[in-house]
């Protein structure tokens, strides 16, 4: 049953297992899981879109837009996500995501020269981070700090809370690295974390080690 108008069992179990008192007047819902996925592509915009767009909304928000939009129109829509809605996107990322979306959902072709020319991501920051495994650069370039802070709950749990929760679990660091790469929902509430699919295994491990460090 998806809908719970709380009753005695919920009250008792809540008292037993959490500090928060849920009274008989509480109403709780459980939202169904998201199922839509972006179409896979070798274009650089695919990984970027998977990682950046789904921070704020599900893939079906994009999928059920109008057909027949061109690359300029899709790029302008992605730019709106930065300028109107505060998405953390560089100018190059906007062009790259716009090109990818125009190919999979609009009129552009993966072989168009206009698509190819913007589908090259400036690797300098990423390569540098890969070489040095610079956690600060990884946190900044992957938008982690939009949802997490060291010591305070934002949209997601604080890094400290994660470390505390898993401190006696020897598998935790590896599990955390996988969660960062693949995303997840349910461990810390119903707001899902998008997959940070652009991370290499080493980068994900570096971030996991940073989070778990005492």
């Amino acid at each position, binding site marked *: *049953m*998806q*809908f719970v*108008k709380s*009753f005695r069992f919920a009250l008792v179990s809540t008292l037993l297992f959490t500090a928060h008192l*849920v*009274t008989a*007047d*509480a*109403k*709780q*819902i*459980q*939202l*169904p899981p*998201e*199922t*839509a996925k972006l*179409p896979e592509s070798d274009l650089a915009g695919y990984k970027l879109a998977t990682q950046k767009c789904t*921070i*704020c*909304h*599900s893939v*079906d*928000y*994009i*999928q*059920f*837009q*109008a*057909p*027949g*939009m061109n690359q300029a*129109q899709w790029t302008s*829509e992605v730019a709106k996500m930065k300028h*109107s*809605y*505060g*998405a*953390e996107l560089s100018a190059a990322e906007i062009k790259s995501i716009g090109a990818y979306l125009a190919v*999979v*959902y*609009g009129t552009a072709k993966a072989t168009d020269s206009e698509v190819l020319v913007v589908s090259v991501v400036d690797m300098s920051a990423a390569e540098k981070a890969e070489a040095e495994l610079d956690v600060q650069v990884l946190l900044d370039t992957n938008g982690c700090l*939009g*949802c997490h802070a060291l010591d305070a709950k934002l*949209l997601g749990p604080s890094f400290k809370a994660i470390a505390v929760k898993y401190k006696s679990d020897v598998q935790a660091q590896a599990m955390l690295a996988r969660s960062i790469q693949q995303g997840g929902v349910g461990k810390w509430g*119903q*707001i*899902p974390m998008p997959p940070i699919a652009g991370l290499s295994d080493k980068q994900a491990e570096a971030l996991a080690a940073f989070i778990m460090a005492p």
Partner: protein
Amino acid sequence: MTDNKDPIVASRRRFIRNAGALALTAPLISRAALDTGEGVTFAGGERPLVQFPEKRKLILVHSRPPHLETPFSVFNEGVITSNDAFYVRYHLANFPTLIDVEDYRLTVRGAVKNRLSLSLDELKAIAESVEVVAVNQCSGNSRGYSKPRVFGAQLSNGAMGNAKWTGVPLRAVLQKAGVVADAAQVYFNGLDKPVLPGTPDFRKALDIEHALSAEPLLAWAMNDEDLPFLNGYPLKLIVPGYFGTYWVKHLSDIVVLDHAFKGHDAYFMNKAYRVPDNDCMCIAPGTAADKTRPISTLPVRSFITSVTAGGHLPVARRVELKGIAFDSGSSIKTVDVSIDGGRTWKAATLGENLGRFSFREWTLATTFTQKGDAILMVRASNNNAEVQPLKADWNPGGYRRHAIESTAVTIF
């Protein structure tokens, strides 16, 4: 917990009741296989029917934040839209999934003499409760039919609904707080929040004269039940005659301003939900407006509900066509129906009047004399001398579509 209070049981009963009603009229209604696009096409695939809490299966617009459209067949079930069929639209994905009314407070602050922090019970005790039947229609309802197409939720005609709302007048609460003499606007905020710090919050403003008028309501009940969670439990701002964008869900904060609402979190007033600032609120397709203003009231609109596009109706038999009409509150004056693509029109009979903000049912008995294709059309006028236009106009947001609807059917 009794069965009556269990929404699952209640919705099951409603379903059985509705299924019975459909069966009775089935010989006259032959619909094409369920098409969740209802004539609208999408960039990638077809929209599925999905099950969300307290809702029957509705059409998925997007899942996070939740956005669900009512299948159009629902509007033939009656002029009141069932709570479990009512459309859902959030803008921001960071909203609570547990709300305890013991903890819930409505704050009234800003340019007032007494700041208030009210529990739901305290709010209910402020004034005698009132009821209004009113249409909530999304600004972008029918956006999917914009030509040329525009970005935004590609809605068919199901982002609307009509319900009986129970609450206290907004002005009773504002009067209790004591609005200062130079108050200009009031803004409303709910418990939903943005995911990223850079995203504007969803806040909406009304001019002080409107806020202090008899119409806006702070409602806790919808069709005599608690508001469904996804429609704004435990309290929703009801703005009869105005588009749904003003009907703030999970209402938690009312702020009186001595100036016009502005700033980063005024985005959904000052940047979005705006229409061209001219008489038709329209511009040439593909162009940009020089000047815009906030979208406001519902234009007069009507639909046929008893048959949908691609449907079949019998020849040489009495057929009762049925539908709905509504406007922003001047009341529907006439509804005319054409069964010959707009060459001739007949006046339909208006049904029971549930109030000037409600859907108004109309019916017209007719007999088709020829087999083959037919175009049915419906056109409403209101007491403000507004009549639905034949041709749809265009604006960049794909807002407030209200042209005469045409329904292509086959007479057999």
